[in-house]
């Protein structure tokens, strides 16, 4: 017993010396060295390739959308460019300044007696923040990311990133074929890679705001086109957009409500559900597809709660199920930025909410 207490005290001393408090040490997850998007909470084999999973500590840090070397434990501004920091998921390890070969998931002490330093490594899909003030989507291939910007009238740009949200290598960028459509049925305009290879650009008609356009992109020579729908309420400024969080009401758009659905009687729950529906519709209309999942998934929880409280109404099953399915579809399509599919899912969603409201009113 005494030995165990002593060992705990020693460990605590080491952890404190490493600059990490006991409460800050993130738990261990398990990931595949070849497929970093495979994550589990216990040791095992990779579900994709069967390799042994390896331990990793995942933490949320604040980083600069442009200067990826900046890591802070709290929100703030980048020390290099003063941009607002954004959150990203990173893998935390410890290393020694004099020996980069050291890379372990436990804090410790270097051979020279100095405490190990924390090191943060990016994770695939750990950063979905726009880097140029635009609109950020994940591609359906679950590997690429893209960001569209509308920096000036008639000028549309697309930045393409890898799975770590880093700019695509020039050799890979040259394999991309992209075009932009401002109205279906009209001819598309090619998006051309600029000489530096940092983005693709097209000159299009000067559209009134909110400017809507669709990028159609093949990421490789044999890949089929993926569709990304953009709606720019204003011209993009090369400052990071806020992370998907409540939108300012000063702009007149609806503000997503707090996460927890309300408890209470059925009428109050239906009222909350209608509020979420309004938020979904507002986000769909404004093109803020990446934020759709918040009110959509809150709405399906409310619908299930309404169904549970109104247990003597089997007719509720059909609209509740429609709300559940369309909420998950809005979540999926919102990440992909496919406006057509989003609109279809939101129509189904709204119709189901109306049907549920009608049935509840008849009780």
């Amino acid at each position, binding site marked *: 017993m005494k030995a165990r207490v002593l*060992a705990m005290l020693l460990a605590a001393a080491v952890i404190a010396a490493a600059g990490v408090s006991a409460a800050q040490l993130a738990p261990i997850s398990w990931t595949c060295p070849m497929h970093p998007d495979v*994550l589990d*909470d216990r040791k095992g084999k990779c579900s994709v390739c069967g390799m042994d999973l390896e331990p990793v500590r995942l933490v949320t840090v604040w980083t600069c959308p442009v200067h990826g070397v900046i890591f802070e434990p709290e929100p703030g501004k980048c020390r290099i460019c003063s941009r607002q920091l954004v959150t990203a998921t990173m893998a935390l390890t410890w290393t020694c300044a004099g020996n980069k070969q050291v890379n372990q998931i436990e804090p410790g002490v270097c051979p020279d007696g100095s405490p190990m330093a924390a090191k943060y490594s990016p994770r695939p899909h750990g950063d979905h923040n726009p880097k140029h003030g635009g609109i950020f989507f994940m591609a359906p291939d679950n590997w690429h990311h893209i960001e569209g910007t509308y920096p000036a009238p008639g000028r549309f740009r697309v930045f393409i990133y890898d799975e770590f949200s880093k700019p695509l290598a020039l050799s890979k960028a040259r394999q991309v074929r992209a075009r932009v459509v401002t109205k279906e049925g009209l001819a598309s305009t090619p998006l051309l890679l600029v000489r530096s290879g940092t983005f693709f650009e097209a000159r299009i008609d000067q559209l009134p705001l909110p400017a809507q356009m669709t990028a159609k992109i093949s990421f490789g020579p044999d890949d089929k086109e993926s569709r990304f729908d953009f709606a720019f309420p204003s011209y993009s400024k090369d400052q990071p957009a806020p992370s998907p969080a409540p939108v300012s009401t000063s702009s007149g758009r609806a503000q997503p409500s707090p996460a927890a659905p309300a408890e209470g009687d059925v009428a109050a729950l239906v009222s909350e559900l209608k509020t979420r529906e309004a938020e979904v519709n507002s986000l769909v209309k404004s093109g803020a597809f990446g934020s759709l999942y918040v009110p959509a998934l809150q709405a399906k929880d409310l619908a*299930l709660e309404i169904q549970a409280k109104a247990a003597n109404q089997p007719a509720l*099953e059909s609209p509740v199920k429609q709300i559940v399915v369309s909420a998950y579809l809005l979540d999926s399509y919102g990440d992909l930025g496919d406006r057509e599919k989003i609109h279809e899912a939101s129509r189904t969603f709204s119709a189901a909410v109306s049907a549920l409201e009608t049935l509840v009113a008849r009780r």
Partner: protein
Amino acid sequence: MKIAGPAVAAVCATLSFWLPGEAHKGITSKFTYNADVYPIFLNRCGHCHVAGGVGPMSLLSYEDAFPWAESLRAELLETEGATADDPAGFIAAAHRNAPARELDVILDWAGGGTPEGDPAMAPRPVALRNEWTHGEPQLALPLGAPYQMPPDAMEAIQEFTWPLALSTAREANAIDVLPGTPAIVREVDLLLRTGTAAPRPLGTWIPKQNPAPLVLSPPARLEPGSTLVARVHYRKTWKYEGQPMTDRSTIGVYFLR
């Protein structure tokens, strides 16, 4: 003070399991396979999605089920009915009859890191059940010889016939199929040929979560000299690609008393 690195690391590793911390980013679902998802799979899917069943994978163990999480999400969120793979829409209908709450559990689990849950609640293995669901039929008609599906075939439709050796006409009110190799028997069209007339369809048997014979309403009159026809649609899943398969299914007829 000099501290032995491995000993410290071991202590830290031990300590880390005791420290409170936020849930790691991979697992976000509040549902686990063992406690919440398995009972749904057993009751809604386990007849077909069991080892040796007609489904392309078993869902009745965590190791079998969790790699299919994304496929499950896509299938359960699919809004189309009939497809080229499923022209009559039977599979679509079977896959989408879960109530809203169960659907939410599966989708939340599949998209939220597919946590396994408490190992103490891990389900026991479930074996395929392949038996007459309505008791022994009065007339059992096995295939005359086993059908051999070649290794390079993934799909085949075979027609089998049985001249009915009946001394008098009898009324059949149900007909069932007992697959010889359930993994490849996808559906069976049943017809009755009487005299020189074109065969009359009796119905289509498909594997279901709650298997039951095909009810013949009104009952079918089986005349002496008539012929029962079964067109069996065989289909291999990816598991059996490149393998020879054999089937000797049996058709069962139930007569009105």
